């Protein structure tokens, strides 16, 4: 019988592929409760796979519990691969937290979670997958805003970009202070980018490389990048040196990053860092690039079109 059950799960896993829907699961929790995911219909369902040796994963569950599960805003289903360590590190398990410690690897494959890592999921009231996060998340920046947006039925068509575009840069003093000495009117337009961190193989490095090329070719475009407050003078000097940067580099004092984070949270968007502002010579923010996975390509395409239109 267990073998048949496993085959059924594997079959279901193939059927569901990338787990677009919450699979039907009937199982006992570690403390003897029976759960049936069919009964979760009409509820938002949070599923988390936990290797309890990772404090990050335990902390994530605690945060989701305190913010949402405790007040029954979400139904939770938690799979753990070592109950003893889980109980040690998590503490007392509340009644409305369903923890399953059986067949961990089978359930992992049912939800298409890679062997190497763990993951968490949110399913909507029709059991359809809303999001899946692997281990590299930031709860405050990525997961919490999404859950809040979903719970509040926010119009997600509004984005942080809409907060800036068409507005004067001096409406955002926390950003304007970096360029208030620059005579913006003497440039055709200006580009300011913000990077919490920089590496050449990451989006930040690609943006900086492109901005450097742009700056070298066009003397009438003002280019500046702002890096986060944890960059030392030596780090900034090395950054200029290693990446051959010859435009203005500023260091945030923490305020800019705080403001950006607040705005992104307001729109329920994950804040991934790397925000690019394009400002015309009257100080109006024409365009903002951030957030989605293709924003760099969109930014470069926009710049090419803009330059083609304006440099005839």
């Amino acid at each position: 019988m267990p073998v048949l059950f496993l085959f059924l799960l594997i079959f279901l896993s193939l059927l569901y592929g990338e787990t677009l829907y919450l699979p039907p699961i009937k199982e006992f929790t570690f403390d003897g409760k029976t759960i049936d995911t069919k009964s979760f219909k009409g509820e938002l369902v949070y599923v988390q796979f936990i290797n309890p040796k990772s404090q990050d994963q335990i902390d994530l569950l605690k945060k989701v519990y305190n913010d949402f599960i405790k007040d029954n805003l979400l139904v939770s289903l938690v799979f753990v691969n070592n109950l003893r360590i889980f109980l040690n590190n998590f503490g007392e398990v509340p009644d409305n937290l369903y923890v399953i410690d059986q067949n961990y690897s089978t359930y992992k494959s049912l939800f298409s979670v890679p062997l190497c890592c763990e993951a968490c999921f949110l399913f909507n009231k029709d059991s359809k997958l809303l999001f899946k996060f692997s281990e590299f998340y930031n709860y405050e920046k990525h997961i919490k805003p999404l859950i809040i947006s979903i719970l509040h039925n926010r119009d997600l068509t509004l984005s942080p970009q809409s907060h800036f575009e068409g507005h004067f840069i001096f409406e955002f003093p926390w950003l304007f202070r970096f360029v208030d000495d620059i005579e913006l009117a003497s440039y055709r337009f200006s580009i300011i980018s913000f990077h919490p961190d920089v590496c050449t193989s990451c989006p930040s490095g690609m943006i900086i490389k492109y901005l450097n090329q742009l700056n070298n070719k066009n003397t009438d475009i003002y280019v500046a990048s702002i890096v986060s407050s944890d960059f030392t003078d030596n780090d900034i000097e090395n950054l200029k040196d290693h990446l051959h940067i010859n435009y203005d580099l500023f260091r945030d004092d923490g305020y800019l990053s705080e403001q950006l984070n607040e705005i992104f949270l307001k729109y329920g968007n994950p804040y991934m860092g790397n925000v690019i502002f394009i400002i015309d010579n009257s100080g109006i923010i024409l365009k903002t690039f951030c957030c989605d996975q293709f924003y760099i390509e969109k930014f470069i395409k926009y710049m090419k079109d803009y330059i083609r239109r304006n440099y005839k």
Partner: protein
Amino acid sequence: MMLRPIHKLPIIALLIFFLITVFSNANQNITKDQILAMWKQWLKEYPVPKMAKQIFLMDYFPKENQVNEGIYFYKAYHLAYYPKDKTIFVADWGQHKIFQFDLNGNLIKTIGKKGQAPLEFEYPGEIFINDNGIILIHDQGNHRFQIISLEGNFIGSVKLYKPYFSYCFKKDNLLLANNSTLNNQEPLIEVLDLNGKFIKGIGARKDFPIQSPLNNNVYISQDKKGNVIAVFAFYDIVRKYDLNGNLLYEKLIPDELIRDVSRKNKKNMQFKDGKASCLNVINALYSKDDNHYLLLTFPRLAILEFDSEFNLKNYYYWPETSPSYYSFDFFVEKYNSSDIRFFILRRAEENRIEIFGLKK
């Protein structure tokens, strides 16, 4: 029976698939049966040489009683050994902290927690201790190196702006190898001081028939004099440079498995969408005085010992290796000619340091 090249194709294809799967952690479609079949095939195809000596698993840590006390690795990927104090430092990428053990596996201390401040880490990867006892930790998530004392006190931190394949910190400066560029004008190895300032480049990149940013991935180490050893990860090539960057030799590694894989890579090397279709059988390089050791884990755990001229001196292997044995860091402690121990940081799912000794 040796297979003719055409018959080897499915095996090669399967192996490529397996290695991409294992090393990129991207695709989970390969079955355990397929891995097992390939593993058996390779065991037959590449028997151990006649000179090979068996090793056996003597011990490991953390042990079950330590796990019960909360001492365990989650994703420990790299270690560093400080012979003067006979102490081991392990960076746990998933727990964002550093463990210090003695050689018997007793925990001495842990350093750090998750975060961005000094002595806080996000996904600490490679860890090194130089001859003076200065510890360097690649704080990957924060894109920096943190420099700390043997006692665990913060000394400094330097941001890193390029991805590198491997690192070495044995003397005063940090050596970094290959920043995944196709630009063969860039040096093979960059030397930075502990303020992150570029000092000089060492060695030239090698031209290969198929262009790939992975071609010049080299494991690096330094011998007693500070000469730099560079072992190509995908080819059977080893080079030795002096600290002025003069090439002292370039040789072929005398091992049939490494040579065959190298030959296949010359034909199959490709790099598309962040995935490589090449094989990597050399898992790590460790140098002690004038001896150099290569770690191989597939199809069997093997440690190849070379002299300063990279002539094969000894071949150690563990006959009980499972197909899923997986490690990318180790060190060697030699008590006398007959008592040599290999400390191997075994990755998931075991997550522990395994100590191997010579079978009497």
